[in-house]
Each structure stands twice: as C-alpha cells, then as structure tokens.
C-alpha cells in the first residue's frame, strides 16, 4: 500500500463516518465567522429551533464591512456611516450574544481580517479542520491544516452539527524547486502558478505546495500562497508542518501551553506527505524562472511578468478564449501588444487577506522609504490585516514611512479588496492591488484591478506605472 498525502492524513483524522453513497461526515475543529455570510445561518438555526453543537469551536470577527477611515472607525458600530453595513456588523454582534459565540469586536486590537486573525491568535492550529463562509479560508492550510471556504447553508450545518458532508478531493502537488530571484515574493509565485494551471486548474483537487522555495518561505509568505489556491480553482491549499510552522504557533493566545504544547508538537510533526504518497497530478516550477507578476485582465489567470506585453485575441486557439481576451482588453481599456510597464496606475491598494501581514508591509515600506508617490496617483491605501499588525508596524515606524510618501495609513479590514465599505475604485480607474481577484467591478463599479505583490504595488505608487521592483533593489533584497 502506498503512503498517504498530507491531505489524506488530515481527512482520515477527521472522518466521523463513511456512508454507502460515497459521502463522508467530516468533523470540523474550528469554525470562523464574519458578518457577511453568517446572518442567514443564525436565522436558519432560529427558525428550526436548533442550538450550537459546540460553542467553543466558533470564533467571529467583523471584517468585510468595517470602515478603515480612522475617524469613522472611532465611532465603533454606531459610527458606521453606511446603514446597511452597520446593520450587518450589528447583526453579527447580536447573533454572537444570542448564541454565546466568542466575538472579537470591531475596535478590539485583535480585530482584523478573519484569515489574518485566526493564525495570529493561534485559533488556527496545525492538524485542524477549519472552515469559514469565505473562500479565502484556504489561507489557513499554510499551517498544515485542512481549511476551506463554505457557503452559508454549510455555515449553518457546522453551527448545528460540527460536521460537514464531504466527498474526498483528489491530490495535487505543486513543487516549486530552487530559489526565488531577489524582488520575487510568495505573491508572484501564487500568480505564476495560476498563470500556468489556470483558474480551473485545481478544480476537484486539494493542493499541497512543496519544494525548496515553499520550505524557505516565512509563514506570512506561505499564507499568501495558500490564500490564492482558490484562484487556481482549488478549495484548499496546504503546506507540511516544519520548524517554521511550530515556531510561528508557539506562544500565541489560543495555542496549547506546557505539557499540552509538547504533546501537540509531537503530533504535528507527522503532518507531511509520506515519501511514497501518490498525487493524481504533479506540477513542477523552477523558482528561479518566476519574475515579478502583474495581472492585465479580468481573471487571475490573465497574468504576465512585468517585462511582458499584453496578448491579442488572435493569440488564442479557441473561440471562447479569443472572446475572453477581447472582452478583458475592452473592459481594461488596454490594447494588444502594450508593454505591462506602460500601464498607468490611478490608485494603489496594499492590504487584503492575501497581503496585509507584517512582512507584506515591511516589503512595501522598503521600496517606498524615502520616496514619494507619483503625482498621477490619486490615492495609495495601506490597510493592515489586523490591529496587532497595525501596532507592530507602528512600533517599527512603517506607518511614518507610508505617510511621508503620501500614502494613507488605515484601520484594519477587508477594505478595497472588495469594496464593501467605502474604499472603492472609481469607474475606469486602474489599481495596483495586493488583493486576490481582478474580476470586473470587484473593487468598484467599472474599476480595473491589477494584482501584484506589495513590493510591486509600492514601486507602481512611486512611478505611476507598473515598474519592475528589481530596479529599486539595492543591496538589501526582499
């Protein structure tokens, strides 16, 4: 019998029951909630007269709707200007009180984007099954956990039963070998992977990221990579546990302590794929071949190296792809053959569950330090992923660097990644964004999103055009 993959091990460890119809009941250790996808689930429980199966598995935090403007934010829930946003955040608070769910409130220092908060608090632990009504739950797989997004019906299902009815996915390993060039980050790796396998490439698979490049990444970088598994079509991405994982978890508020910690670490060390494990699909990418990436279109797979030129519909072989390129160029108001470095930038957004952790902010600050944003750039937002990240960045003086350059330093939240609060793009504006989706209208009606790393976003802020960050690097590489 061949060995098990990491995914196989996590699956078997949470298998409650296998049924004759091919489905399985999988136990969920941690359930994270936010204000957008939970209200209808709590309402469903009320209507059916059901209660929570296990209260202490749940942790809630408002993030999508919260204002990031420091003044508006001071008013707490009552201070939220948009009445529908306010009602949604208030509803989360009310539901958490009614069902006795632990909530990190809006102006608690620990508040932030749910996928930043979970690992930061140690609420995300290796070996756990973790779900949340948000597709970027794949982020938590970076800690060697089985983590994926669910819809609201499943949020209700987990609240009521602590389980999900699942069918096992196939295994895919993406091996990124060698090492990265200076100036190339986890975000560029994620975009390069999506460029290679496409936005449906991981459909039906659980992805394990492996190889020397992945082993060398910090936890922050690993989270960026796993975060964008969903943009590659896979609900979940994961990385084997090593000393970097364990060092990251140690001492966090929800992490086990003392004798329990020792027992936990012993079990976590087994969380890797066996040498003879079988993957149905394997991809190998040379880390050294990856250049800083910029998306040019309306799907994350429409991505090019900074040195590239935009494609033409004629480059595609089938009619659906031709039409997709034509439509994307039209929406983005860009011509075939344009060099990526000729695309102007109106706004810059550094933040989101993909790139708002301390390392991301340090990378952006390193580029922006001592420089100013270009006159043509209307706004450059820096939105830390949590209050803890914000405090840390301020302790390091990063906020001063951003402010001195003409950037805005904000309170934590999802912000312009999806513009559910007032941080949005104007019609037709191009944005250098460290978020994860460049869909039509994602960041605002008619807005044009280009996905990049934090360092590339900072470089674009300085020049007003997409610019190869490697031109900015001195002796200190990123």
């Amino acid at each position, binding site marked *: 019998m061949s060995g098990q993959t990491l995914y196989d091990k996590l699956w078997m460890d949470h298998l*409650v029951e296998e049924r004759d*119809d*091919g489905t399985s009941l999988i*136990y969920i*250790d941690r359930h994270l909630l936010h204000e*957008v*996808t939970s*209200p*209808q689930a709590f*309402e469903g429980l009320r209507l*059916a007269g*059901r209660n929570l*199966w296990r209260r*202490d598995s749940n*942790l809630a935090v408002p993030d*999508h709707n919260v204002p990031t403007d420091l003044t508006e934010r001071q008013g707490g829930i009552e201070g939220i200007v*948009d009445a*529908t*946003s306010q*009602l*949604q955040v208030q509803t989360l608070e009310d539901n958490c009180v009614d069902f006795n769910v*632990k909530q990190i409130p809006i102006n608690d220092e620990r508040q932030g984007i749910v996928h930043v908060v979970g690992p930061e608090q140690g609420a995300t*632990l290796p*070996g*756990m099954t973790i779900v949340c*009504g*948000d*597709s970027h*739950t794949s982020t938590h797989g970076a800690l060697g956990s089985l983590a*994926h*997004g*669910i*819809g*609201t*019906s*499943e949020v*209700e*299902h987990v609240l*009521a*039963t602590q*389980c999900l009815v699942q*069918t096992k996915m196939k295994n895919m390993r993406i091996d990124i070998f060698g090492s990265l060039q200076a100036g190339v980050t986890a975000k560029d790796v994620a975009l390069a992977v999506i460029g290679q396998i496409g*936005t*449906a490439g991981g*459909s039906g698979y659980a992805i394990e990221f492996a190889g020397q490049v992945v082993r060398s990444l910090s936890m922050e970088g690993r989270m960026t990579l796993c975060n964008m598994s*969903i943009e590659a*079509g*896979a*609900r979940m991405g994961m990385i084997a546990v090593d000393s970097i994982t364990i060092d990251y978890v140690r001492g966090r508020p929800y992490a086990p302590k003392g004798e329990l910690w020792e027992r*936990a670490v012993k079990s976590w060390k087994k969380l890797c794929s066996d040498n003879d494990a079988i993957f149905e699909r394997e991809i190998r990418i040379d880390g050294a071949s990856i250049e800083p990436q910029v998306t040019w279109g309306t*799907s994350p797979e429409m991505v090019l190296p900074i040195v590239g030129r935009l494609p033409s519909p004629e480059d595609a072989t089938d009619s*659906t792809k031709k*039409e*997709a390129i034509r439509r994307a160029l039209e929406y983005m108001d860009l011509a075939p053959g344009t060099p990526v470095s000729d695309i102007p930038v109106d706004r810059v957004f550094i933040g989101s569950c993909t790139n708002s952790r301390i390392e991301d902010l340090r990378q952006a600050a390193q580029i922006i330090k001592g420089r100013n944003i270009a006159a043509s750039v209307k706004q450059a937002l820096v939105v830390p992923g949590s209050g803890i990240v914000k405090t840390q960045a301020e302790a390091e003086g990063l906020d001063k660097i951003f402010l001195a350059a003409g950037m805005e330093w904000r309170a934590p939240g999802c912000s312009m990644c999806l*513009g559910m609060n007032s941080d949005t793009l104007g019609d037709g504006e191009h944005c250098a964004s460290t978020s994860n*989706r460049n*869909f*039509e*209208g994602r960041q605002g*009606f008619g807005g044009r999103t280009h996905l990049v790393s934090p360092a590339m976003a900072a470089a674009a802020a300085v020049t007003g055009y997409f610019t190869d960050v490697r031109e900015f690097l001195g002796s200190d590489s990123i």
Partner: protein
Amino acid sequence: MRSFEVEIGIVAPMDRANVDTDLIIPKQFLKAIGRSGFGAYLFDSIRYMDEGQPGQDCTGRPLNKEFPLNQIRYKNASILLARENFGCGSSREHAPWALEDFGFRCIIAPSFADIFYNNCFKNGLLPVVLSSEVVETLFQKMYAEEGFRLVIDLENEIVKSIDGVTEIPFEVDSFRRKCLLEGLDEIDLTLKSKDRIREYEDLKKQNSPWLFQSNT
C-alpha cells in the same frame, strides 16, 4: 429545501468562460441579512447600465439591451447554459440565491467551481455538467431556435430535447441527487449520526485535548 424532479424550461445563454460570483451578484448586495430578493440584482453590473444599490427598486433602471436576460426571447428562462468554470471566485451563497430567485432551476456548463457547485444543491438549483462539445451544440441549437427548451430529468439523470428524441446522460452523486429529489434537510440527516459524532469527539478529547480548549 425546494425539491427538484423534472424541469421543462426555456434555455438562456451566459456565453462566457469563468463567470465569477462577483458577476453573478456584486458585493454591494451582500450586505443584506435575509436570504431572498436577490433575483432583481442577478448579473447586476452587466444587466443594467447603471450601478445598482441594495434595496433599490429596479423597475425604472436603464437596461443593457445586449444582455440576453433582457431580451424577450429568453423571458421566463429557467435553464441557464454556460461555459467553463462557472461560479468561480467567492463562496457567497448569494450567487445561487440570486439565480434561484430570478427563476433558474438548472445551470448547464462544461465545469463548475467547486464551492458554487456545492452551494447550488443546498438551494434547489441543479448544476449539470456536460462535455464542452455537447454544451457547444446546445449553444448553437439555442441561438438557432427562438424559445428553445430542454427537459432536465434528475431522477433518470438525463437532459432531453423537448421532442424526447435526443437524450444526453449526466451524473450527480447519489447523496446530492437524493437530497434534491426529496428536498431533504441535510442538518436533520447529519443529526441522525449524533451518537457517532459524540463518540468521535470523546476519542479526540483523549488523543488531541488541545483541540477542545475553551476560548473564553
């Protein structure tokens, strides 16, 4: 949940690949705390010429006349014909809520994004996977014939032409098929295994007690 047995309906096109959930229902409508009323805002950013707001009455809004769902020939369509990777992007269940509320009961595509596919079944909406070639043929037939209809038979897992001459088989896993056919409540089904869940928890508390620490 609303059950699904057989649907006979007009077919409407969504003729592009990688239709994402932001396109199906833009983010401003996700601020609602209820489950209904999303149909008026389905495909809002390409269906109307202006930017919609939650709670807005859409009757006076300027329509994009190019958009198929605004055309009289696709009026009352209940089957949506789509391309690869339909429903990619976020996990928002508002996407199937909007499709269902608009009047769709079935979506046919060569492939679906995993989370969206799963969400459909919770809402009486049947996603049917057919090969790219078959989907292409259906697109051609639909464009050629005004009022083109299909029969979707979940019990027998067959898509049929309206004259019954052509039958195209499809597959749905037996659990989802049963739940949809009978409109079953999945939570009730899972709670039938509650003793088994308790046993699992008891064992896990012994082996991995750190997973059961109290958070408060």
